[in-house]
């Protein structure tokens, strides 16, 4: 991989609610990559992601984005620099309409292309177009996830952090969401995907990291991880 490193996490440790949840994580995401961070519930994946975007303070270690340290940078500064996160549980604005939600995603922008960008989102997510004047809280879970991703794209991210996009969705919708993740990546957005659904995540990703009780235990090309007996046994529910 000759592309420059966009996100570099070194020795990250995070304590959260008295628990040492992340115990020294190293990972990197290169420009144009789709990298997934997989692991069981409670392994520290989401905590890692939250520390990367400033939602939780790091106890030790460094987080570099685009070559600069973003450890002390407030979360609201990051979208301006092209780092946008889609929070776990989607975090849409339930009482605002679909269109208003999308417009809110462009909060940091003041260029003329916002309306055009909203139309582009509707091309990617035709369901949202049908429901543009509907209040976001009335959308189905899958539609809300699409809205959350569409809204994040409104900030024109370079790096998109996705926190468990499949959570609480029916299997058919999960497949659809992953298809969309792949589509977004193909448009040139770099993605760090945190997922419990290891198989689907590895199928769309270029590379993967496996996290276990606060540490990265395995990493490598996604295809390789899919073949790895350890991953197959622990996360894909297969007996090797």
């Amino acid at each position, binding site marked *: 991989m000759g592309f420059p490193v966009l996100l570099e996490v070194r020795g990250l440790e995070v304590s959260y609610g008295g628990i040492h949840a992340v115990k020294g994580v190293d990972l990197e995401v290169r420009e144009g990559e789709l990298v997934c961070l997989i692991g069981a519930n409670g392994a520290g994946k989401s905590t890692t992601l939250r520390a990367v*975007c400033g*939602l939780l303070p790091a106890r030790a270690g460094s987080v570099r984005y685009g070559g600069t340290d973003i450890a002390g940078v*407030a*979360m*609201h*500064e*990051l*979208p*301006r620099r092209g780092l*946008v*996160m*889609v*929070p776990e549980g989607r*975090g*849409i*604005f*339930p*009482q*605002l309409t679909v269109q208003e939600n999308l*417009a*809110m*995603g462009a*909060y*940091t922008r003041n260029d003329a292309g916002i309306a055009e960008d909203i139309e582009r989102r509707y091309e990617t997510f035709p369901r949202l177009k049908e429901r543009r004047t509907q*209040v976001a*809280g*009335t959308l189905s879970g899958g539609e809300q996830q699409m809205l959350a991703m569409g*809204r*994040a794209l409104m*900030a024109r991210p370079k790096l998109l952090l996705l926190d468990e996009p499949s959570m609480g969705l029916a299997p058919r919708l999960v497949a659809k969401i992953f298809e969309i993740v792949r589509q977004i990546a193909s448009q040139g957005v770099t993605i760090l995907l945190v997922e419990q659904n290891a198989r689907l995540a590895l199928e769309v990703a270029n590379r993967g990291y496996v996290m276990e009780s606060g540490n990265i235990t395995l990493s490598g090309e996604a295809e390789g991880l899919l073949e790895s007996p350890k991953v197959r046994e622990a996360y894909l529910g297969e007996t090797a």
Partner: protein
Amino acid sequence: MKEGGRKVWIGIALIAVALLLLPFALSLAGTAWVRIANLALLYVLLALGLNIVVGFAGLLDLGYIAFYAVGAYVYALLASPHFGLHLPFWVILPIGAAVAALFGVMLGAPTLKLRGDYLAIVTLGFGEIVRIFLNNLSQPVNITRGPQGIAGIDPVRIGGIDFSKSDSLLGAVISGPMKYYYLLLVLMLAIVLINVRLQNSRIGRAWEAIREDETAARAMGIDTTALKLLAFAMGASFGGVAGGMFSAIQGFISPESFVLVESVMVVSMVVLGGMGNIAGVILGALLLSFVPEVLRWTVEPAQRALFGKMLIEPEVIRMLIFGLALVLVMLFRPAGLLPSAVRRRELTDDRAA
């Protein structure tokens, strides 16, 4: 389109004429009614200020009257014999607004991470702290004169016009309270305009996002810390302006005017009228300040006519009816009498869900 536009303008012109003539009509029924109208306008100012904090940014503030108190005391200290200072009205009002805004930030900064009920409890405590300070700051240095209050506060004087005295203009007598009415009307218009502009601005949209989901708002790039403090400061400064006017109109203030019930009253006005909707908030403030006065003037004669004597104190009936009205509104119009577009949606969502 043109026809509709003209109708709107005719409507606005009619309301403007009615508002301009209202004090003359009221003074026919007695100057007391003009004073009541002034008090109602003060409550409108307060409710519009609180609406920024509660309605726009979604931060429940139960100590709002503290900012009213701060504005009132700033005015009283700078324009009364107590310190021998007699600064002009147009100097004090901005100072009062600024000091109140500072107090707003003082309340906002330590409560940034609190939400909902927890924030409500802290703000409630803050309101009481300010009142108790005012009550006790007579020693060791006598600043507020404690429970005695400050008397002899200067009335507003603009140019050569003294707002405590009557003047005649084109043969019509314009009393002091009437002058205050017009001044309050101008202030109210200014605050309404600021509210409208804020609501449709980038700041207004950011507040909306914070109210809906604070973490998501931060993920959108919204500086929630700065914007929440701004909401507290702006809301407080309007309270400070209203407080200054209260001081000037009354000529006397004491901590008793700034009790918890007053905060609850202003919150009720915002909730009853329709949180986040400017017209609704004005309606709520007018209703809750006028209706009790009307009751005060009708309940006693009605009882005397019916039973020959007074059975229930007007004050008791006032609170009974007030409570009943609030319960009815919460049952039948939970989003307020004139809900904002967003709250109305919220209501229909609940039914759909």
